[in-house]
Every structure is written in C-alpha cells, then in structure tokens.
C-alpha cells in the first residue's frame, strides 16, 4: 500500500523531469523523485541508505544541478524541443539499455528466490563493514574523489588566468 503510493510518486516525478519544459521545474521534480526513492529505502528498512539518499542527492546533487543551471543558462524562458532524427536513435539506445537491464534482473538469482530473509542491518554494522572489511575500497574512493577535486580546482584556476 505505502510502497504503491511512493512508487507512483517516484515514477511521476521521473516522468515530470522529462516532460516539464522549464529546467528548474525539472530539477524540482527530480528532487521529488529522490525523496520518493529515499522513502522506498526506508520502507525496505534501510535507514542509513534512505537518509544518506536525502543528504547526498537532495542536499548536494540537486543543489549542484541548480547551481550549474543558474550559472550557465537563462532560466526564465522555457526550453522548446523539436523532435528530429536523433530521437529515434536515442530511443533505440534507451530501449537497448532497458532490455539488457531487464534481462539481467530477470535472470538473476535474487529475483527468483521467493522469500528473502530480511537482513536487519544497523548503522553500526554498516560502519564496521566500511571500516574493516571494505576499508581499502573506501580509501581508494576517497583518493579518487580527492584527485577529482584537485583536478576541478586546477581547471577552474587555469580558466581564471586565461580570462585575465
């Protein structure tokens, strides 16, 4: 019952993201989608993932998109889109990706085991796993993100110098 409501909200938000002609409206619809997904996580008992979803996707990613839009475009006007040949090809690509994903999910062992024992995962367990078993991958991701951060700053600095 609850799942149905929030699934509908999530899908409606996702549809609105594509259909709305104003970029900022699309971002707001995207936020609704993120929130809907977070609620679905919570319904599945994944508290940590659900809150992290809100914190990271609404608090950071959506705000980042907003900044990107406001700094690069004139947001007042609605975007007009004309349908042309590229739509056909992108449609084919989308259908292909969807088919592959659907095939993978359908044939995976997880979707066929009838009743999965719901793992009662506490935040503490996630923390322990990240700090002990998966400490190295975590460090590698941290290094990668730091490298990306430094790279971004370097690019921004160079552009600033060229502008002068």
């Amino acid at each position: 019952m609850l799942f149905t409501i929030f699934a509908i909200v999530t899908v409606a938000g996702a549809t609105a993201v594509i259909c709305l002609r104003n970029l900022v409206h699309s971002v707001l619809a995207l936020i609704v989608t993120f929130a809907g997904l977070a609620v679905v996580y919570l319904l599945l008992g994944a508290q940590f993932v659900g809150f992290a979803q809100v914190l990271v996707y609404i608090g950071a990613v959506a705000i980042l998109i907003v900044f990107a839009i406001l700094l690069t475009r004139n947001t007042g006007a609605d975007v007009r889109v004309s349908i042309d040949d590229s739509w056909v090809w992108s449609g084919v690509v989308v259908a292909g990706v969807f088919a592959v994903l659907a095939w993978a999910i359908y044939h995976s062992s997880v979707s066929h085991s009838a009743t999965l024992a719901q793992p009662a995962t506490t935040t503490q367990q996630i923390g322990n796993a990240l700090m002990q078993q998966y400490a190295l991958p975590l460090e590698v991701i941290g290094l990668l993100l730091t490298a990306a951060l430094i790279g971004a700053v370097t690019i921004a600095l160079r552009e600033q110098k060229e502008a002068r």
Partner: protein
Amino acid sequence: MTLFASNSAVETADQFFVLAERWIVAHVPGTARALVADVISAVALLAVFASLFAMTTVLERKGLGRIQNRYGPNRVGPFGILQPLADGIKSLTKEDIVPLAADRWVHYFAPLVLVVAAFSMYAVLPIGRNMVLANMDAGVLFFFAVSSVMEVSIFMAGWSSKNKYSLLGAMRAIAQMISYEVTLILAAVTVVMAAGSLSTVTIVEKQAGYTGILPHWFVLTPWGFAGFVLFMIAATAEANRSPFDLPEGESEIIAGYFTEYSGFKFALFFLGEYIGMFAMSGLGITLFLGGWTAPLSFLTWVPSYLWFFAKLLFLIAMFIWIRGTLPRLRMDQLMNFAWKFLLPLALIDLVAAGLWRFLPNEAVRWIVCSVLVVGSYVLLGRGLARGWKLEKRVYRFAE
C-alpha cells in the same frame, strides 16, 4: 541530602509529560494507539517550539534594543511582552501578494517546505528523559538530511520570486549553507565517533554520569570544546544569522530570498528560520552539552526537560548577544573563514577526538589533545593573518 528524600516526587515531576501521554494513550482503542501517541508528541513539539519562537522574537527585540541603547517594543501589554500576539494578528490579516511574474506554485510551496523541514528536525531531539518522538538508529543522519532540504526551499523561494534580489539572496544563502554544512557535519562526527552511535538518545546516554560534581559532557574535553565552538559557528551560518546574515542583508539586497513574500508566508519564513535555529541549537545541546542531563551532580532532581530548555535559552541568548555585537561579514571573508579556517580546524579536531579515544593515560591525552587543538588554532590564525595590516582605526571627525 533532604533533596533526595522525596525520590518518587522527583521521578513524577521528571516523567510528568511522558506519564500524561501514556495515560491518554491508554484510553484509546488498541489499533489507534501508536498513531495517537505520535500525534500527541508531534502536536506538543509544534506547540512548544512555536511558542518559544513567539517568546524569542520579543526577547530578541528587547535584547537588541538594550544592546543598541533603545527601548525595543514596549507598547503592547506590560513591557511589550504581548508584541508577538500583535505581530501574529498583523501577519494573518495582511494581504498575501504574489508577484505577477512569480512562478505561482513554486512560490506557494517554498515556505511550506521550509517549515515542514524545520519542524521535522525535532523528531530526533531528546528534549527530556524518555522524551523523544523517534529514537532512530541513524538519528543524527536524519537531522542533517532534513536540514539539507531547507536549502532546497530557500532556492525555491529565491528563484520563483523572479526578483534579482531574491535570486541573489538565495544563491548567497545556498553557497553559505553548503560551505558551513561541511564544518557542521565534521564537528558532529567527532561526537559520533566518541559515542559510537548515530542515535541521539544513545549520545545523550553516553554523556550521563559525573566525576566529582562535573558531568561527562563532551564539551568538557579539548576536542569536544573545539567541536562545540565549531558547531555553533557553523550553526549560526546555517541559520543565516548575524554575523553570517549576508543572504538577508537588509541594506544590500532588501531581505534576500523572501523579499517577495508578504503576510503569513513572510511570517512562515521567519518561523522556519527561528525553528531551524532552535533545532540546530538543540542538536548542539544533544551532541556536546549532555542533552537533558543536569550540569552538576547535585542538581539532578530538577526535571530533565527544564535543563534542555535552560540550555536552549542560554544558547538563544548567545545568538542574540552575537547579533547585537558583531558586524556582517563580507562574502570573501565568509568563504575564506569557512574553507581556510574552520574546515582545517574541524579536520584536526577529528584527529584529536580519535587520539582521545586511543591514548591510554588520562594526563597524556589531555595534554596531547589540548596542544593539538589550541596549537592548530593559533598557528592557523597567525598564518592566515600574516598578510594583514591591522592598525588602530583613526577617525578624522568629531575630535
């Protein structure tokens, strides 16, 4: 020890509201009990903190008046204490003006999202013993997740007004909130590390107990003190309060993101901002000031919720004092302060908290952590101020 003679009376006073709620819930048919209990708690939180907001507006105006050598509100009721009532009636009866160019729906929803997000934060704050709406496993994370939604509502308000001042204010607010959120969360992480839990209730429990008469609050450790100061500075910035009130700088951009709001929606923004500030202070109390626990061991007979609100009022008084004392920062100062000063200090504080956990000797860890925290503060401050030419300001007039 006569104070402890009537132990059960103390217990009843402490748990009065909890028992009252249980009594009401016991009179409801079984299926609706959980719902009724939640509704009662939520309504109580809404009522208490909304009236605290009303009280704070008049306290703040009185306090600022005192600091600025004027009277403040003194016409409505004795000493002007009924001023919030008059303000409320005024904002309710005023016309709600929506600009013609505004994006009607987004404009309408922005204050609602703000107030809902601000009030949701109280769900995880333990305001007394056994007095928390939702004891979640990831309570602190919930708090920060909901507070990040407030940024979205501020953007919605600023963008939908189609007013350059509103948009400027919103962009300033978001840039500021993102910058200071990093410090805020890092300062909170020190406590999460020390307590080993994200649950607000567990964090308060970890600070229970006394050594001599002093409590085991995290603020009474070197890393905890530094963390508390960092947290409160970042919380001031998150709440857009002076000296970090650039997003609302009246003299520069009118009122920032809520320029185009009038009547009750304006009041909602005001409410949301103050409620957010109380919630941030409440989290600061929970994380560093021992939540609802008494500050001295012989004061434990005072009901726990009174301690929470005493601490909250103390922090509010500090906020008012700071607002009356400090001038507004410039944008570059704001960003430099956040990224070059607060962030490194927060990271070093994190290391200090880790060392505190693993150093064996009490004396050694006090010395090491204090040196780390104070040393980094002094060195970083000196290093950043090296290029400055600070001289005594000379006024050429009125001599």
